[in-house]
């Protein structure tokens, strides 16, 4: 008799993802898939994907899904959730989508306190287009459009979205996590579960930022990229809960 300790979540199809080996999207989409199974979200769930590496994940999920235009996922999700408040909307975005193109959309969805969950993958680079500088790129970090390393003179300083959004009243939960070890992955899943539970309770906007490896565009092996997150990224982007309205975590 087989007793499963771990197997591929049921909501994931047998199709292989298009992600690079070691990609953070692989880990995070898998966490989300596990939660969809555990919390029964396939029935009423809709995933709104961004334009970015992650949107190829539509091929591996057995869910109703919409790929929004670049940056517009929070706006599309607003339309969906407002006409169908009973549906469960997962908004998934990367650096370019949320922090650049979609800055207005995420800020105003937050201001309005839209009642959906946002999972934001911060890998400090633009992945899909091949490694250009992102607003989240670290100072001195190489990128194709900052070949001498990101410089504050030209491109300003990195922005922490978990902190920034935590100052907006409509955001009721904001946490930054990462996926650099089994323990970290477990904590990330706990945070995303929290964000999902808040949506099920009719509260919003809940926001989880995930520091995530991009071995390909960082020019590192996957295991090295996990180390780079722990050593370098967490200095700029500290992990932790920045807002928890229910438990009054001070901002």
């Amino acid at each position, binding site marked *: 008799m087989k007793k499963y300790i771990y197997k591929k979540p049921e909501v994931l199809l047998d199709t292989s993802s298009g992600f690079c080996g070691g990609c953070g999207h692989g880990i995070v989409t898998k966490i989300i898939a596990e939660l969809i199974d555990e919390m029964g979200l396939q029935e009423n769930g809709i995933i709104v994907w961004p334009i970015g590496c992650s949107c190829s994940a*539509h091929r591996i999920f057995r869910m*109703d*899904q919409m*790929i*929004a235009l670049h940056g517009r996922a929070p706006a599309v999700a607003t*339309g969906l959730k407002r*006409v*169908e408040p009973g*549906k469960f909307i997962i908004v998934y975005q990367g650096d370019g989508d949320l922090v650049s193109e979609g800055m207005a*959309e995420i800020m105003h969805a937050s201001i309005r306190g839209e009642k959906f969950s946002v999972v934001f993958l911060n890998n400090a680079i633009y992945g899909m287009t091949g490694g250009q500088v992102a607003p989240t790129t670290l100072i001195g970090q190489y990128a194709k459009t900052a070949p001498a390393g990101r410089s504050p003179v030209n491109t300003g300083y990195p922005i922490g979205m978990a902190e920034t959004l935590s100052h907006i009243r409509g955001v009721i939960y904001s946490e930054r996590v990462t996926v650099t070890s089994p323990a970290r992955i477990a904590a990330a899943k706990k945070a995303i579960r929290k964000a999902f539970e808040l949506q099920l309770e009719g509260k919003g906007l809940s926001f989880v930022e995930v520091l995530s490896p991009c071995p390909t565009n960082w020019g590192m092996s996957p295991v090295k990229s996990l180390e780079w997150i722990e050593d370098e990224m967490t200095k700029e982007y500290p992990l932790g809960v920045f807002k928890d309205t229910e438990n009054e975590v001070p901002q």
Partner: protein
Amino acid sequence: MGEKVFMQGNMALAESAIRAGCKLFCGYPITPSSEVAEYFARAMVERPEEGITFIQAETEVSAFNMIAGGAAAGHRVMTATSGPGFDLGQEAMSYMCAGELAGVIVDIMRPGPGDGELMASQGDYYQVTRGGGHGDYRTIVLAPYTVQEMCELMQEAFVLAQKYNNPVVLASDGNLAKLMESVELPGYTEVPVPSEQRNAMRGCGKTREPHKVRTGMNGEAEVNERNLYLQSKFRRIAENEARFENYMTDDADIVMVCWGSFSRVCMEAMERAREEGIRAGLIRPITLWPFPEKAFEGLDGKKFLVCELNAGQMIDDVKLTIENKHDVYLFNRYGSSLPRPKEILAEIRKIAESLR
């Protein structure tokens, strides 16, 4: 049909949309469209039984994408804006066509380009008929000329959008938006069940095939497949949905071509011309796309006077339709106020003179 009222164009438009079951209005204030937004905002508060959601979005970029989301869930949705706002919505126009989403967009035109002015104009004709977004797509464009017709076409817009799973544009202008007219408001219409709409985002559960809205394409084969499919849809629309009205064209020597509220000025000019013995007629396209080619059948050899409030945009479509550049004249102004019938009459007289 409902009650007879004396109502402002914008408000009558909003009321007709509500009675057609529009559940989501997202927009950004911009003159001369803001009354539509305000009407929906009031309806959300004062008429909770209608179940309306009004969102004042941060920008038109966002507003248009919000209605794309609402349309994806199978609901009747709309936005209303003017030229500068419609500009910002162009990515979403391309997106909604590619994603087969039934959004309804009202463009209440005002003079441009740039920030421009606030009242009557027809300067967005190219933009609404050619599409200001990228790629090969088309949208039905409905062009009412009275508040009464605007109310009817407003309700038609939702039906057509959902019939073809394609966005529909209703072209109004600052004049029609603001004027108050006697109108018999349309009644409440039947509204299709959102969960039964094709490819609706509802949550698939374990049994239903997942629905997806995906506008990206992979490889040449998919580019061809998607575009051929869309083109065949646009052909079907072109064959079935072109609308127009002809006035005294059979025996006319000079046929005016005009649309929207401006056509009412032209009709006055036509009648005065007739009184002077000039055989004038008028074609009024009611759909700007598909352009009503049938309206021009049997009118070979006549002179056409295209009257528009722009630099001359619809005149291209007239020339293309009759395959003739030489018999087409232009009367144009750049908008804001409407010209007087006598100005157009002067133009008609000139053409009539040249025919003698």
